[in-house]
């Protein structure tokens, strides 16, 4: 297996090359085409009237004035649209006990989060739809809301769905070994509670779609800013009752997804329902205010972690308890168990211990639904484990790097399964840490830190080891009952001029995945990169697939592309052999030419092969079967996922008088297996790091105790900008995945996971002289000052 892969790589040029994204010039020169750029004939625009309350009964809805407003074509309520659509149910069948009530498109009797859509106003322009939406009068009876994860099971708090009896959506426990005994015998126990506030993916391009139902043939075409056109084709077909071959979902240019555009939104299905009702195309593009209220939210967890350590400095056991406030419903198809499950199954993953106890509970609250967002629950595991590891090292009196080296599973102990159930096979914790320590000149950095403390400058160094689940396979979603495809595919065709055209089921929201696919095709067939065209985003023309999620583009989609490339290469060689009347063994393809294997001399160009294949079949033997279009699909049938890993470091300075934090440097050593495009891999890592830094230092959906969002614009929801980020240095260890020929793992989430861990650890490291900790994200200046004021020494900072 490895041999054949290596052979196919031997003459490679494109794989491993730092090629900029193929669409870059087009997008950067304003020639992109996003959903909101697209106008269809007779198209209408939809705007929503949303619940202004986190929890309220609807007494009455008055739409007369809105119906009469200029440009208005329809004002639709749940009574109009809900019956058109099978309700959404976000229950995971593979998680016994998981509960979620059915969700309708629009709220009718009761709204259960602030921002839940209630009325759809459809008009000739978006501005007119917004004007008319202001004319809709809803009489509300506000009810008490439940908002905090730790309140959700309090019997004195409201129950979001009375039919469920309480707010518990899901409860899962892991118990491996004898944790109680290990903690009783531990020389040191470190523990804390970790709070992660809610945040958002905040894509540059908000969500949007145009639903175009054609009453003439009963077909539905949806132009959708979505990561998985296949998933949505299935959803529109199943929920709206349209035969699948009459549903087509097209994903045009997309300005960022980050998992947020993978979710299934009732309000997006309602747009399709509105188009069916009106028989006209209907566009809905969320504006930025709606992004805050209605894009899937993320995080909102409270975790408690404990770590037991021997006097020699060995981690002997861990305990984790997680409470996640997942919003008012289970996220359809993707559920609301993933963040908590990842948190408890991945905590402690790099470390060599076996006694482990963990529990996660997902809880309904009167807030927007939590869905997929880059990293999902993996950052919780990384933060909790690495903050505790640093504290354990300090308790033992060991340097944090030495402590990690000592506790990583030893080289040569793989494959093995962690207590949380992660199968480690091709991870490289030691190699990554060794490289990182050199990269940051760790010893010198520590000396600088110590020296500056004498001057009253408080800097912190944070090292965080992370494991990244990438490219989920059928063993996960298969048993869940969700119709999520974990396969991907590729159609590939030799064009008559000798160039290649490829259609992949993988989609690209800015990652550069399609560039990577082209590189793989180029090398697997033997043509220059420039001779490969790749298209994606049409659910009706490529092989069925998953699209973009769980960092699977190269690992799964790339493997499919490799298979397609090899098939086409074989077919081209067969044809070339027939044309030139030589044997296939004597022929090879390189640089777009069929060459003689021994001499390397050009025998025939691909253009000439294609000419015969398409136009002069009469010159071939009568029974020769020309196949210059091939299709290949790939799924990792037995593989839960491919585990990638890495280590990151942060260097921060905390202004202990003001509580402001300055990030001085960020470094990552990442192992994502075979690297197809180093430039784009580094950009994935950097982009993820930016979002990780945003999470720890800036981003927070600030809810009042009553459940009202208090910061719903980009002025007060702080997304870090370029000027707020440090230089980011990225290096790699390359340990190929052995389960595939390509050997690529995912890299989409690595940056975020590791950065969150490293920044958490570094800020806490800076606060060590104050004998205090910060465990509430984001680390706002006020929270830092509060942490310092809890300092037992009450160290005088001039106040």
């Amino acid at each position, binding site marked *: 297996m490895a041999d054949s892969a290596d052979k196919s790589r031997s003459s490679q040029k494109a794989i491993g090359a730092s090629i900029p994204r193929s669409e870059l010039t087009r997008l950067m020169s304003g020639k992109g085409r996003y959903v909101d750029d697209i106008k269809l004939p007779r198209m209408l625009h939809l705007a929503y009237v949303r619940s202004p309350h986190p929890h309220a009964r609807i007494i009455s809805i008055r739409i007369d004035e809105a119906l009469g407003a200029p440009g208005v074509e329809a004002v639709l309520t749940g009574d109009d649209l809900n019956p058109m659509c099978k309700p959404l149910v976000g229950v995971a069948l593979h998680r016994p006990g998981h509960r979620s009530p059915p969700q309708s498109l629009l709220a009718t009797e009761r709204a259960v989060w602030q921002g839940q859509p209630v009325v759809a106003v459809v008009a000739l322009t978006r501005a007119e739809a917004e004007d008319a939406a202001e004319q809709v009068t809803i009489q509300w009876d506000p009810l008490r809301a439940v908002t905090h994860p730790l309140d959700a099971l309090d019997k004195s708090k409201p129950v979001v769905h009375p039919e469920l009896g309480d707010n518990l959506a899901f409860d899962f426990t892991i118990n491996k070994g004898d944790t109680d005994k290990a903690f009783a015998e531990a020389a040191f126990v470190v523990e804390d509670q970790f709070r992660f506030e809610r945040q958002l993916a905040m894509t540059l391009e908000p969500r949007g779609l145009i639903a175009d139902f054609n009453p003439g043939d009963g077909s539905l075409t949806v132009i959708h800013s979505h990561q998985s056109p296949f998933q949505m084709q299935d959803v529109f077909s199943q929920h709206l009752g349209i035969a699948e071959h009459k549903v087509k979902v097209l994903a045009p240019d997309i300005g960022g997804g980050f998992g947020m555009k993978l979710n299934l939104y009732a309000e997006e299905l309602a747009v399709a329902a509105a188009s069916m009702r009106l028989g006209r195309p209907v566009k809905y593009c969320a504006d930025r205010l709606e992004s805050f209220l209605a894009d899937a939210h993320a995080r909102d967890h409270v975790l408690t972690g404990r770590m037991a350590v021997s006097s020699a400095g060995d981690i002997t056991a861990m305990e984790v308890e997680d409470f996640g406030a997942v919003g008012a419903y289970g996220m359809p198809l993707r559920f609301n168990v993933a963040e908590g499950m990842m948190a408890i199954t991945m905590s402690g993953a790099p470390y060599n211990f076996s006694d482990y106890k963990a529990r996660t509970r997902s809880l309904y609250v009167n807030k927007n639904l939590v869905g997929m967002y880059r990293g999902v629950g993996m950052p919780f595991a990384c933060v909790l484990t690495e903050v505790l590891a640093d504290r354990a090292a300090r308790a033992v009196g060991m340097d944090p790097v030495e402590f990690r080296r000592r506790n990583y599973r030893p080289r040569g102990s793989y494959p093995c399964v962690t207590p949380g159930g992660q199968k480690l096979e091709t991870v490289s914790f030691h190699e990554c840490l060794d490289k990182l320590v050199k990269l940051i000149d760790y010893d010198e950095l520590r000396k600088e830190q110590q020296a500056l403390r004498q001057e009253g400058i408080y800097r912190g160094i944070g090292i965080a080891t992370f494991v990244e689940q990438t490219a989920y396979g059928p063993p996960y979603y298969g048993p869940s009952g969700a119709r999520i495809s974990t396969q991907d595919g590729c159609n590939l065709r030799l064009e008559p001029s000798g160039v290649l055209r490829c259609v992949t089921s993988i989609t690209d929201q800015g990652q550069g995945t399609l560039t990577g696919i082209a590189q793989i095709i180029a090398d697997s067939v033997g043509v220059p990169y420039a001779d490969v065209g790749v298209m994606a985003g049409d659910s009706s023309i490529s092989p069925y697939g998953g699209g973009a999620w769980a960092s699977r583009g190269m690992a799964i989609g790339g493997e499919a592309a490799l298979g397609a490339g090899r098939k086409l290469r074989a077919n081209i060689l067969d044809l070339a052999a027939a044309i030139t009347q030589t044997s296939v063994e004597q022929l090879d393809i390189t640089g777009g030419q069929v060459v003689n294997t021994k001499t390397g001399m050009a025998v025939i160009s691909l253009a000439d092969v294609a000419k015969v294949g398409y136009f002069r079949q009469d010159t071939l033997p009568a029974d020769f079967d020309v196949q210059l279009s091939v299709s290949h699909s790939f799924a990792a049938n037995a593989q839960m996922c491919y585990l990638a890993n890495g280590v990151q470091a942060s260097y921060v300075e905390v202004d202990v008088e*003001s509580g402001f934090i300055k990030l001085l440097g960020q470094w990552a050593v990442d192992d994502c297996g075979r690297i197809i495009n180093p430039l784009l891999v580094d950009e994935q890592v950097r982009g993820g790091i930016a979002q990780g830094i945003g999470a720890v230092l800036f981003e927070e959906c600030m809810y009042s105790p009553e459940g009202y969002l208090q*910061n719903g614009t980009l002025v007060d929801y702080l997304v870090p900008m370029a000027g707020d980020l440090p230089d980011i240095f990225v290096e790699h260890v390359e340990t190929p995945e052995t389960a595939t020929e390509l050997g690529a793992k995912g890299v989409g989430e690595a940056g975020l996971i590791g950065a969150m861990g490293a920044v958490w650890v570094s800020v806490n490291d800076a606060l060590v002289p104050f004998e205090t900790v910060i465990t509430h994200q984001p680390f*706002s200046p006020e929270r830092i000052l509060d942490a310092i004021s809890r300092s037992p020494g009450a160290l005088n900072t001039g106040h």
Partner: protein
Amino acid sequence: MKAPSFRYVRARSLQHAYQVLQHHNGDAVAIAGGQSLMAGLNLRLSGPKVLVDIGGLPELSGMDCGGKEVRIGALTRHVEVLRSKALQERIPLLPQAVSHVAHAAIRNRGTLGGSLAYADPAAELPACAVALDATIVVGGLEGEREVKATDFFTGLMDTNLKPGELILAVRFPVPPPHTRFAFDEFTRRQGDFAVVGLAVTALVGGDQIETARAVYFGCVDRAKLAEQVSSALCGLKLPVADRGAIRNAVTKDLEPDDTPGWRAETKLRLAQVLTQRIVSRLAESGTQ
């Protein structure tokens, strides 16, 4: 996020602008750079019936740095203040403050008059106008009048401007040569509105502060002289040894509110930290 519909009038002359504004009374708003107004319209925070575009009026442009005072036209963009060599020499506080105003794209459009008229309590320029004891030249159908900056900002996003009036220019007295300036702010991100900011001008003789004008922004309802802090600074020898008096003065001058993410006490603390740092900087700036 579409603005409610409004009528757009491009003023042909000052008189025309005054007339349209006066005619519609409170329902017409002047638009210059539009950097705050347009965002507010798109958020439907306000819904004026008429926008009067004063962007083409030559009377509102230009900067005169020649005499004992500097006169800056209301339409002067932030970027022009930032890059003005004359201002850097004569009133360096202004370019220094403008470097903290938002981002380049906003500084390219936003105007001095707009910032003062909008009177955001977190904005840099109203605070500078008060610290520099500027005079604001206001025009309307009834003619021109002048208002001291100290009297101009009357409340939260409220000014002394009457319906139908426009800011024409701002007159800044050129401070004497032994004046020192200090300006800084705490912002979560580069370019954000300040949580707490402070502009100080101080006349320093030898190593002693003779007079000082301190103006906070971000943690106040409007730009106004911080009287306690200003007088606490007077007579102090640089570098300041005892900072207790200044800290107390800050507590007397400021009464911040709780806002999401910031308790009032935190803002007060930040104001004290910032004030101490700025006072230290006053000492340093004399050694250049």
